Structures are given as C-alpha cells and as structure tokens.
C-alpha cells in the first residue's frame, strides 16, 4: 500500500528531467544550428523532402554494394545526380551538404571501381566540380564537403595536375583539422 501510494509522484519526478532535457536539447540544437548559419534554408520543406529521398536511396545503394552490384549502385547515384538540387538560398547549407554526400559517394565508387561503367578522368573531374559547385567554400565546414574535395584531389592527380591536387588536399586537410578541433573543443576525450 505504501509503495503504490508513493510511486505516483516518483514516476512523475523521474519523467520530469527527461521531458525537460528533451525540450532543452531541442532548443539548444535549434539555437546552435541557427548560430552556425546552417538553419537558413528559405524552403525547409524542400530540404526535408530531399533528406527523406536521399536516406532511402543511400540505403538502396548500400544494399546494392553489399550484393556486389556496383553498376547498379552507380546507376542509382547517377540518377540522383540528374535530379534538380536546391540552390544554397533555397536549401541552405544542409542542402549543399546532402548534395556533396551523394557526389562524394558516387565519385568514391567510380574511383574504386574504374572498370565498372567506365568514364575518363576528365569526366570524373567534371563530376567533382559539378558536385562542389561554385560556392563550396562558403558552406560551413562539414565532413561531406571535405571528402568530396579530397576526392577531387585524387582525380586531379590522375590528370597529372599535381599542383592543383596538392591545393585540393590542403583544403580537405584543413577542413578535417577544423572538424577535429571542434570535436576536441567540446572536452578532451
């Protein structure tokens, strides 16, 4: 009897910090994203729809790669490449990062499997440049842009454009260094 009587306030008491934590977490995330300039898509619904589409397609690609169907995976990503991508004003930084993720995955697959649906290094460079776009450096530092920039360096190396390759590697290294610093600034592991 005593237990059941005092159990109700206890349950309420144990739930309260969880609810408060969730609310504070959501608020902190929104403030953080806004401060980082990442929450500025003019049409957030476009980014949400794009994110949902890409999540499904990335899973499909993973499944195809798992089955060894590299050509199928490349075709899926090439189809995504042809879809209309939101510009930075419409989709914000998040839209650009989603794009860099898809292009990076496609370029990685093409570089790792040059004999599957083969294309020349010039076409690969075109792929990298198309993916990064003209405003890649304006996008907040993130792992997807860093990876695509590094892959562009690999393509440039294939084209014997070593100076440009080194520039790309330096840019990618700097992005990764910034990301690492951000992780370490939170608190030392």
């Amino acid at each position, binding site marked *: 009897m005593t237990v059941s009587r005092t159990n109700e306030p206890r349950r309420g008491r*144990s739930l309260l910090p969880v609810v408060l934590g969730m609310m504070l977490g959501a608020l902190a995330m929104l403030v953080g994203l806004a401060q980082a300039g990442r929450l500025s898509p003019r049409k957030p619904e476009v980014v949400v729809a794009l994110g949902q589409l890409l999540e499904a397609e990335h899973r499909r690609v993973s499944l195809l790669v798992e089955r060894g169907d590299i050509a199928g995976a490349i075709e899926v990503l090439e189809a995504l490449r042809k879809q209309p991508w939101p510009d930075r004003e419409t989709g914000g930084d998040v839209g650009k990062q989603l794009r860099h993720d898809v292009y990076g995955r496609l370029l990685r697959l093409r570089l790792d499997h040059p004999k599957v649906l083969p294309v020349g290094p010039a076409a690969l460079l075109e792929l990298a440049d198309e993916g990064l776009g003209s405003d890649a450096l304006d996008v907040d530092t993130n792992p997807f842009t860093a990876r695509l920039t590094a892959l562009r360096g690999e393509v440039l190396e294939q084209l014997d454009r070593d100076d440009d390759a*080194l520039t790309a590697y330096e840019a990618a290294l700097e992005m990764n*260094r910034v990301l*690492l610093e951000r992780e370490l600034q939170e608190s030392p592991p």
Partner: protein
Amino acid sequence: MSGGERPGARWGACLLALMLGACSATKVHDGAPASVAPSPTRDGEGESMKAEASEEAEAAWPGEDLDELDAEVQQAWSELEGLDQEREKASAAGKVDGSMAARCERIRGLADQICTLSQRMCGLAVEHPGQARYASACVQSEDTCERARQAAERCPE
C-alpha cells in the same frame, strides 16, 4: 421506505455490516491467508472454525504488531528506492558512454582522413623533390596527422 420499517434499525444494520466488512478486509489486507476465513454456508461449524482460523492466523502472522510490519515495509521500500537510484545512475552512465563512444568514433574517423591526406601529400612531395611547397605541405600535414593520432589514442577503446 416501506411498511413499518424504521430508519434507525436500517442504519444500524448498515453500520454493523460495514464494521464486519472492515474487520474481514483488514485481516485479508494485513496478510492473513484468505482461506482461513469462515465460510458463510457452514453455519454449524462456523464458531469453532472461527476460533481455529483466528489461532492459525495469529500463528502464521510474521510480525507481532503493526509497527513491526510498517518498519518492514519501510525497509523494503528503502531497498527498492536504492535499486531505482542505482538503475538511474547506470542508465545515465550508459548514455555518457554512448555519446563518448560516438565522439571517439568521429575523432578516429577524422584522424584517419587527415593521415590519409598526409600520405597523399607526402607522396606528391616524393614525386616533386626539391620543391619547397610540396616538402612544406608534407611536413605540416605530418604534424597534423600526429596530433590527430594522439587525440584518437586518448579515446578509450
């Protein structure tokens, strides 16, 4: 209200029924086995069984008085509360471990990326001997790689 029935007698009967009900409920709730309660259909054996049941109930009763029982309940409740607190602590520690593991995973991933890039840059430096830009980029990238490795090594496995 019908015929010559008096309200006082009716209230008296209700009060008596309530008192009897409360007594039997108290016994059941206090832990006495319900099977020892006399059956209302066995009127002839009712009184002797009542006495036997009462003795059995007294003998089976773990505590001498209510204070002792209350102390036992309080002790059990304290133990339960302690276990609950331990569970909450363990849950919180698990969450911290999870976020730390995810962060260390990211740190290791970034360290790998940085060191792979450093290898590529140093590979280019080998292909371009005597060119200061390549040599300098290689040395700087190796420093960055070393720092990233150290950060990754500070992470628990």
